[in-house]
């Protein structure tokens, strides 16, 4: 059971799943941490990322390395319309946002059904074959997913910690009013945070759709994952989302390889419920009383 080959497979699958999960969850936690909205339409944006990649890479033949970020950027820019029309109403209104954005999810998913029909498509793989590393045969496409995610996460980290806009964003997340009195343009900051969050989500959705399949309903799984990861790590905590994504990715890869997919779902849901009961603010989050 635990041969070198199977362990290698578990590790590489775990790493690529983690990469996608972290991207999905970071977008979710960013929207929650900064704007206090629970983005129930998260899966729909991931789905749109998948379709964008399908056209750019699958139909128009844009080179893969350009097509992936371009697809995500395209979705993020178009999503600004949704920011103006929908999200802006729900900033700082956590409960209303859950239901309202659920409505956005319905509208987006069924618009997609009307445009693209319900059947599943596949995005042609960009890289086939295996690479041999230290005696392990590793699938190239998974390695590419990991590389893309690492690059994007590094850029995100750089933006948040080393630029003025990142600083403004962290200040806004901590206290909206104080940030405004310090002269931070919070409207623009919110807009930047929104674009970044949707960019990462659409990117994750595109990679996810390429590994699995593309359909208007594919967003359900990323949404559930975002939920679990964000609860696991702590709502609104960025390092928490990264840690949660890695934990969930590797556990799921390990359990589903050796014990089957349903056991792995039971385990991850069960652990998260237990964690919520004992420590509702997650592994790396801060308790509500300390924050307020």
């Amino acid at each position: 059971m635990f041969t070198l080959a199977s362990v290698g497979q578990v590790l590489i699958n775990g790493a690529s799943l983690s990469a996608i999960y972290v991207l999905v969850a970071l977008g979710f936690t960013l929207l929650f941490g900064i704007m206090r909205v629970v983005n129930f339409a998260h899966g729909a944006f991931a789905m749109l990322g998948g379709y964008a990649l399908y056209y750019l890479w699958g139909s128009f033949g844009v080179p893969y390395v350009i097509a992936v970020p371009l697809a995500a950027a395209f979705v993020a820019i178009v999503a600004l319309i949704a920011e103006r029309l929908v999200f802006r109403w729900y900033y700082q209104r956590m409960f209303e946002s859950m239901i309202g954005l659920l409505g956005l999810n319905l509208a987006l998913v069924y618009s997609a059904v009307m445009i693209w029909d319900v059947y599943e498509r596949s995005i042609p793989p960009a890289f086939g074959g295996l690479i041999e590393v230290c005696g392990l045969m590793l699938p190239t496409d998974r390695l590419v997913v990991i590389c893309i995610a690492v690059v994007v996460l590094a850029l995100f980290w750089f933006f948040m910690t080393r630029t003025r806009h990142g600083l403004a964003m962290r200040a806004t997340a901590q206290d909206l009013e104080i940030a405004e009195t310090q002269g931070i343009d919070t409207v623009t900051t919110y807009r930047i945070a929104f674009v970044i969050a949707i960019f990462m989500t659409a990117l994750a959705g595109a990679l996810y759709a390429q590994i699995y399949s593309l359909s208007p309903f594919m967003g359900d799984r990323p949404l559930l994952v975002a939920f679990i990861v964000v609860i696991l790590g702590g709502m609104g905590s960025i390092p928490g989302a990264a840690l949660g994504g890695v934990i969930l990715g590797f556990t799921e890869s390990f359990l589903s390889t050796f014990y089957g997919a349903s056991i792995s779902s039971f385990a991850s849901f069960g652990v998260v419920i237990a964690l919520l009961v004992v420590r509702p603010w997650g592994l790396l989050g801060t308790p509500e009383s300390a924050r307020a």
Partner: protein
Amino acid sequence: MRSPGRILIAGVVLLAVALPIIDPKGFLLTVATLIALNLIGATSLHLVIRTGHVSLAHAAFMGVGGYTATLTLMKLGWPFPLNILAGALTPALLALLIGPVLLRLQGKYFVLVTFLLGEILRLVFVQWASVTGGANGIFGVPPAAPIFASPAGFYWLVLGAALLCVAVVARVLNGETGRVIDSVREGERLAQCAGVPVLQVKVAAFVLATALVGVQGGLTAHYLQYIDPGAFTSVQSLGFVVMNVIGGMRSLLGPIIGVVFMVTMPEFLRGYVEMQQVMFGIILIVVMAAFPGGLVELASHLRAVAGRYADTAKSGGARSERAVGP
């Protein structure tokens, strides 16, 4: 305000009871049966919502009730009223076991936990194939009793159950218990200091609500003559929440209006399923953005505006305030 309201309620109930005579087995009767079934779920969830907790596992509890009712009937051969009773008691027992743990959480964490709990229960329905029939479910659930085999007979049964459920919830919310429940939502600490056993109140509301929705599960299985996990997903749970939200979460009238709205609108837009879902989404967005109090709040807004116009017309009538809200 009091007696016209009562007359209105009596009129609506009479109309509902007389419906099968007007339209023996037509489209209206199907819609009315669905409305009555969903009234149970929506009003029972309203009870939980009034304590300040939004449960996204309500449909999963309905599933527990539905499967219990179906299995006790088909595998154990229990007679009809007993199997519905079992279908009410099992989810209530489950709620009694986990409620004291989950209801300690703040509202938003409770939403997330129940979302996951609903997924777990759905997984159990799908995976425990030897008992629940897996993803295909169980076919050939017999009618509750020969009298209830006809659409009209079944409608009266469901209507009776729905009215009973609404009456129970209304009784709880309008009495002293209702004020206790409202105090728990509005100020938990303060209520506790005033001697309200906060956790017990929450658990009691939760248990009662799950028992009621279990009845809906059992009746739905009789109605559709099969039961499968697809009816008990988080989407259905969200449906119950949406019914409460659209109608208004602050009074029992809210979920009732919400159910009528949510059930009839899709029925009248049958030909355009996707378009209807998109419209639905847009309505949700607009309602939540502009009227978080739901349609009830919108109605009282309109009445207030109308009252103000009437005031200026009459140059300052003193009685206009009485028209605002029940």
